[in-house]
């Protein structure tokens, strides 16, 4: 190691004072830069949400609560009361919650088995998982679009294996039509809530595995082996040893993925019925799309942000309480 350089010879005191001042200036510069890039955008959303809309796409700073009023009570309140946007928020919450729960429920056993593999096996799976995780939502939607399309996807397959005819013979086909999963002739998954939720949970499933991985890989194998030797069945070991120790990570990952899914855009536009479009789609329409009302788009973003914050905060409280119990 070559440490006998000139600066290495300098007395300690000199080095300290020389090093501290630029470091502090550098830190402050970094805070300012990151503040502009990571915090100011949210401040803009907040400021514009109470701003004034100018006809034709613009906005001006100001203070009015019309956009929040429109969201919560409808544009024509108090003459009439509209829940259109609250309904959109409801769909956002519903799709995100179901998607996150399914993803974590399916990721949990997978991750458990993954951590039992050899180091090499784990590495191979992690490469595959990360590749799938990073794949853009547009490609994933493309894949499921083909898989669910009437001409070459699941409906065609069901037709081909005779499932469609079987259902018609048994008279159960009408039920599928009633819940919106079939046209008069064949099965139809686009557009449907099922397709939306399916694609959403596929989207975050690899994230769920990656989030659960640290906790499950830290599970002490000797603990489980001890329980097994004492005659506990695998299901009992799972219930009494594994699940209690990963309860919090399970809850935490579900919450994080739920918040992530609140903002899903491409999946909803392609797979959800327009009557079930979520707040994310409405935000897009206001900011960039057909309706062009930037302040209203900002107000909707703030409400989505508050919703996410409320859930994260409540989750934090709950897990703290669970920790103490």
């Amino acid at each position, binding site marked *: 190691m070559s440490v006998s350089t000139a600066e290495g010879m300098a007395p300690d005191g000199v080095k300290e004072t020389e090093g501290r001042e630029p470091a502090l200036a550098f830190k402050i510069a970094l805070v300012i830069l990151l*503040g502009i890039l990571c915090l100011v955008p949210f401040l803009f959303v907040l400021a*514009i949400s109470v701003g004034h809309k100018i006809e034709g796409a613009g906005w001006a700073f100001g203070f009015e609560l019309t956009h929040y009023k429109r969201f919560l009570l409808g544009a024509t309140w108090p003459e009439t009361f509209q829940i259109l946007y609250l309904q959109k928020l409801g769909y956002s919450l519903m799709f995100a919650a179901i998607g996150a729960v399914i993803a974590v429920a399916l990721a949990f*056993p997978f991750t458990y088995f993954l951590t039992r593999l050899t180091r090499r096996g784990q590495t191979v799976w992690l490469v595959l998982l990360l590749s799938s995780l990073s*794949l853009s939502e547009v490609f994933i939607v*493309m894949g499921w679009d083909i898989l669910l399309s009437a001409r070459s996807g699941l409906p065609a397959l069901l037709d081909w294996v005779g499932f469609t005819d079987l259902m018609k013979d048994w008279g159960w086909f009408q039920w599928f039509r009633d819940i919106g999963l079939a046209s008069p002739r064949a099965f139809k998954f686009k557009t449907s809530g099922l397709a939306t939720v399916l694609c959403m949970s596929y989207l975050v499933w690899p994230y769920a595995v990656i989030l659960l991985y640290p906790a499950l890989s830290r599970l002490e194998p000797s603990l489980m082996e001890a329980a097994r030797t004492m005659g506990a069945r695998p299901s009992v070991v799972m219930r009494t040893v594994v699940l209690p120790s990963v309860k919090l990570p399970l809850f935490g990952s579900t919450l994080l993925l739920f918040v992530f899914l609140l903002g899903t855009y491409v999946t909803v536009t392609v797979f959800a019925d327009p009557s079930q479009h979520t707040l994310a789609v409405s935000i897009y329409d206001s900011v960039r799309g057909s309706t062009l009302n930037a302040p209203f788009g900002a107000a909707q973003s703030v409400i989505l*942000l508050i919703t996410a914050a409320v859930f994260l905060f409540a989750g934090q409280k709950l897990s703290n309480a669970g920790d103490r119990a």
Partner: protein
Amino acid sequence: MRLSKFGFIFMALSGVVLFLPILVVSASALNGGRSMLFPPQDPTLARFGEFFISEPIWRNALKNSVIISLSSAALSVLFAWPAAYFIWKRSTALSRVIAGLMAMPFAVPPIVFGVGLGFMWAFSGGLGTIWAGILSLGALFAALPLVTISIGLQSIDDAHLDAAATMGATEATAFRTIVLPQTIPYTISGFFFAMVLSFNEFIVMFFVSSSAYSTVTLQIFNSLRNGFTPTMAVAAITFIVVSLVVFSLVARFGDLPRLMGADQSRR
């Protein structure tokens, strides 16, 4: 420990479902016609030529994607390195603020961050410029190298640093001879994570590009109303191959299970 039969079947089935959409898209790239049929009709490789060579729309989009993802990943590392180093050196209020700021865009639905960035760049006149896109993604994904570099810094043996200090090394020398060499693999991993994710990023790019230019993912979304075409499937293949290669490299030259938070004591 050996996997049970149930475990094996569950993992295999998960793998099949995981790769089914990707497989179907890849096969669709071979379609001779303009529609995405599976199995592909009169297979051809002509779509690859269209995507990479003959259609300027896709060539430009790919060029933009590459420029933006490489630059924004480099920027993420530049943001993350000093932050990770400060936090590791001494956890002060200021260093916690830095870490908190970098985690912000990650903790909210991405669409809200995109909308905010769109407003900010519109206000400052940067909307629709490539550099605004690079800065935006650089900020969005800075948390990834922050995590990997922090893991790298934590893995440095304090005894080495103490030994260097005893022998009279300054902070700068110790940094150059001990800290830097040991954290380079983690820095590269962080760069790759940020690069692949910004390569695939859609929603934030969508709001900050303002249709002035497009990346591959934006171009695909813009063409959505005319339906998916086999040329887009070529893009999907390209992207999944890039991800597989990059993460294989990370796994080859780094310790992927460790980066993902696996327990170190077990092998």
